[in-house]
């Protein structure tokens, strides 16, 4: 059974629809990657999934349970986590507190996750007590990822997690994502580093103008000449 499935999603900001029937699904333990040009609706789709904007038509389900237009707080408690594309940290909170906020709705101890995040992103460990706003662009991105991992989510939505990261860290992040994924976490992420991302993806979705243009395995999409030409930049 698909752990996550979105069928024919229409939605947008205010009156106008940005998404015009998007379909997506990923199975337990899969990585899905969304690629597409600027303004295609990738971020909008993630927001729609996470209940941050209204879905006018279509349905979204998590492990078969309908979560269309559910409140983000509910989704978090159902094991979803989301790293937005921008403004994804709390700048005046320390790195440590940022991570704690990630675990806000956890009632149990999350010390092991803290350790794990610091292990994932060693630069953060030194800067634990520093306000996250004082970090460099890449370090912030790490904080954002770390924050999302704190809930030990079963489905992780990532909007351009590698933006502004050095190639070294980008590869690290992809490795981490694979590791997390191996542990059984479903991943749905938007990437502009499309090739690298599709390489680790089980499924790829190419969005344009709020609709699926191509949906296939990562492999196939990379090898599809049309996709490569228009969306992966040669």
């Amino acid at each position, binding site marked *: 059974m698909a752990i996550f499935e979105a069928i024919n999603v229409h939605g947008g*900001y205010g009156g106008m629809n940005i998404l015009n029937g998007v379909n997506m699904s990923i199975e337990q333990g899969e990585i899905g990657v969304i690629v597409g*040009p*600027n*303004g295609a609706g990738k971020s909008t789709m993630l927001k729609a999934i996470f209940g941050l904007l209204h879905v006018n038509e279509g349905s979204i389900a998590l492990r078969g349970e309908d979560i269309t237009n559910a409140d983000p707080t509910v989704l978090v408690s159902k094991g979803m986590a989301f790293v937005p594309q921008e403004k994804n940290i709390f700048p005046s909170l320390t790195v440590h507190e940022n991570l704690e906020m990630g675990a806000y709705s956890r009632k149990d101890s999350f010390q092991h996750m803290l350790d794990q995040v610091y292990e994932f992103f060693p630069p953060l460990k030194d800067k634990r007590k520093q306000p996250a706003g004082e970090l460099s*662009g890449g370090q912030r991105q790490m904080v954002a990822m770390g924050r999302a991992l704190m809930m030990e989510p079963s489905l992780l939505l990532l909007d351009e997690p590698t933006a502004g990261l050095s190639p070294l860290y980008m590869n690290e992040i992809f490795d981490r994502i694979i590791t997390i994924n191996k542990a059984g976490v479903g991943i749905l992420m938007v990437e502009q580093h499309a090739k690298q991302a599709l390489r680790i993806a089980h499924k790829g979705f190419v969005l344009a103008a709020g609709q699926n243009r191509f949906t296939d395995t990562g492999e196939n999409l990379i090898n599809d000449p049309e996709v490569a030409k228009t969306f*992966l*930049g040669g």
Partner: protein
Amino acid sequence: MPLNTLALQASDLSCERDDRHLFSDLTFSLSWGECVRVLGPNGAGKTTLLRGLVGLNHYVDGAMRWSASVDGRPPFLYSGHKTGVSAHLTVAENLRYLVGLSGVVLTDAQVDEALASVGLTGFDDSLGSELSAGQQRRIALAQLYVEGMPRCWVLDEPFVALDKKGVAELERHLARHCALGGAVLLTTHHEPTALAPRPLMLQGAA
């Protein structure tokens, strides 16, 4: 007069933050027609350096000399890691505002033209907050297509959030700019293909 051949001359720059040296004894220059890319891993101090050079922070010590500027306008065009796009202004207003910082006033036609160059045709009345991340980046980049802007560009991570086409177009534009005698100082983690910037390593980085 070195200042006429150099867009920027910086010598003995140093910066200390969090009780550690991000860089020290950094000396470099940027000539017209040249593109320099500041290199270093995350947290190396690239952003700090650029902001220090353009006067947005006081952490960077040392001598920095920009080429002389025309009638009191800033001698450089800076576009930051954060795009500086205001959520409450429309796209056109945002652009006017940004170029206004360099003392340039645009006609409606010029606005349309610049927006078209970055693929934002038709968005001029949308609010900044109503744009996707890549589109916001494009507003900031639209100033690079405006006539009469300073010729020395300081760009922090200009490629972030751009799609493949956008990246390629920007690379081409930067290359063209240098070929026409402009100067570019940038940071990016993206490996450019159509552009061959001179690397400037920030040493001592973590």
